[in-house]
């Protein structure tokens, strides 16, 4: 899932200040799950903006909507119907969703209410951790289901960097275990799980974002 964090209320208030009529749109998928862009977060933002506008000259109006997935145009038809009545859209979707809306609604600003962060999974209640950078060439079968590209800050594919502390925590993020320690400990737990002895050759980064903007072909067979 895509994980994001809401912009601060102060930033959102400042961002939306020029617009008297504001359409606030949440997203019912990933950002609802990570409690960043769902109905609750949209309502909180709407209330905060309204409070900030109290006493300011001029009328102020908001409408709150939740779209199941902002990145799917077919699910945004209701949004298109009402958008023309507003001065700006404040989106609590991820950047993919926001840009999808921006493609559909061309006449008013689309404002980000969220900082999109990473592709990740749930660790525990309200905590998420990055798991994938979308390198385009998954080799999780060779590393026991642990992505060394993503989970090692230095993308060390052949050995640890040696910077972990005495408690085996990552040099860069002391809150987490060095992923090479995790990988070493898990070896052998699962049959055919991966090999620490295999020399991993330099990666082909052209399959990742480093190779340019990626797009799936219209025909999967082409």
């Amino acid at each position, binding site marked *: 899932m895509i994980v994001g964090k809401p912009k601060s209320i102060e930033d959102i208030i400042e961002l939306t200040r020029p617009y008297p009529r504001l359409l606030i749109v949440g997203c019912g998928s990933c950002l609802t799950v990570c409690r960043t862009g769902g109905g609750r977060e949209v309502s909180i933002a709407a209330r905060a903006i309204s409070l900030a506008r109290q006493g300011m000259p001029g009328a102020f109006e908001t409408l709150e909507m939740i779209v199941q997935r902002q990145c799917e145009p077919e699910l945004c038809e209701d949004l298109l119907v009402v958008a023309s009545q507003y001065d700006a859209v404040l989106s609590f979707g991820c950047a993919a969703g926001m840009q999808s809306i921006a493609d559909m609604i061309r006449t008013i600003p689309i404002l980000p209410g969220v900082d999109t962060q990473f592709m990740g999974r749930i660790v525990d209640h309200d905590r998420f951790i990055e798991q994938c950078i979308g390198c385009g060439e998954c080799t999780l079968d060779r590393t026991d289901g642990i992505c060394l590209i993503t989970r090692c*800050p*230095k*993308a*060390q*594919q*052949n*050995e*640890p*960097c*040696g*910077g*972990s502390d005495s408690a*085996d925590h990552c*040099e*860069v993020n002391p809150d987490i275990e*060095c992923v*090479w*320690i995790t990988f*070493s*400990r898990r070896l052998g737990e699962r049959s055919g799980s991966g090999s*620490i*002895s295999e*020399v*991993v*050759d*330099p*990666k082909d*980064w052209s399959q990742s974002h480093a190779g340019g903007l990626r797009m799936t072909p219209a025909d999967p067979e082409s």
Partner: protein
Amino acid sequence: MGTRTWIEMYEVHPPRNASPEVLLRDLPPPGFGFLSISDNPGAMPAMSATAAASHLIRNGYDPILMINCRDRNRIDIQSVVLGAVSLGVRFFLIQPGIHQTLGPMREAKNVYDIDPIQTLKILNDMRRKRVFSNYSRISGTLDFFVGLFEHPMRGDLEMKPFFFRKKLWHEVDFIVTDPIIDFDRLTAWRSAIAGVEGSERIPIFIGLPDVHGSVPETIRQSGHYAGVYYTGSVT
């Protein structure tokens, strides 16, 4: 480096300015040991290690050029090697480099295109097969030595042979350890890698935290190590 003499290596941090005089000041005389030039140490810009190496060579030194994987991709690493060899550099020491978020320019984007072992592979192909990483030909000769770091103080000793073997596979010429603070642990690490075929041929330099560090005589006389590497800068 094919010698039984106890070798001393001293790390030199290039100046954070464009002054060769600052670089050359307070150095031990040529021949005192090997000088290892760090590469943007502390994730902070400094005089490029290649430029610093060039100044040292002109003043009679035979430097080791460190290359970090943080700041450059494979294109630039291969370029650095070509340039450095053209200037007379014979030794390279590869390291990941500390993560930029641990330094004063944490907003910078890192590279980490290739890790040190992958860098070793590419450099080995350059000198043995005379090809770049895309297998296009390199004309002329390219002779140099490549070292990598080992980390005896950290991690599971059972895993160490696997990592050491990967370095031997791509013909590492010498090994430098991280600073050693526990010589019993160093001995245990050395025992752990002893079973790796060919390990006895590779000179291993014991990292020490600074120039005041010392190695117990029993370790020095063991015959397992070629010398020391003082990680605190001499400048």
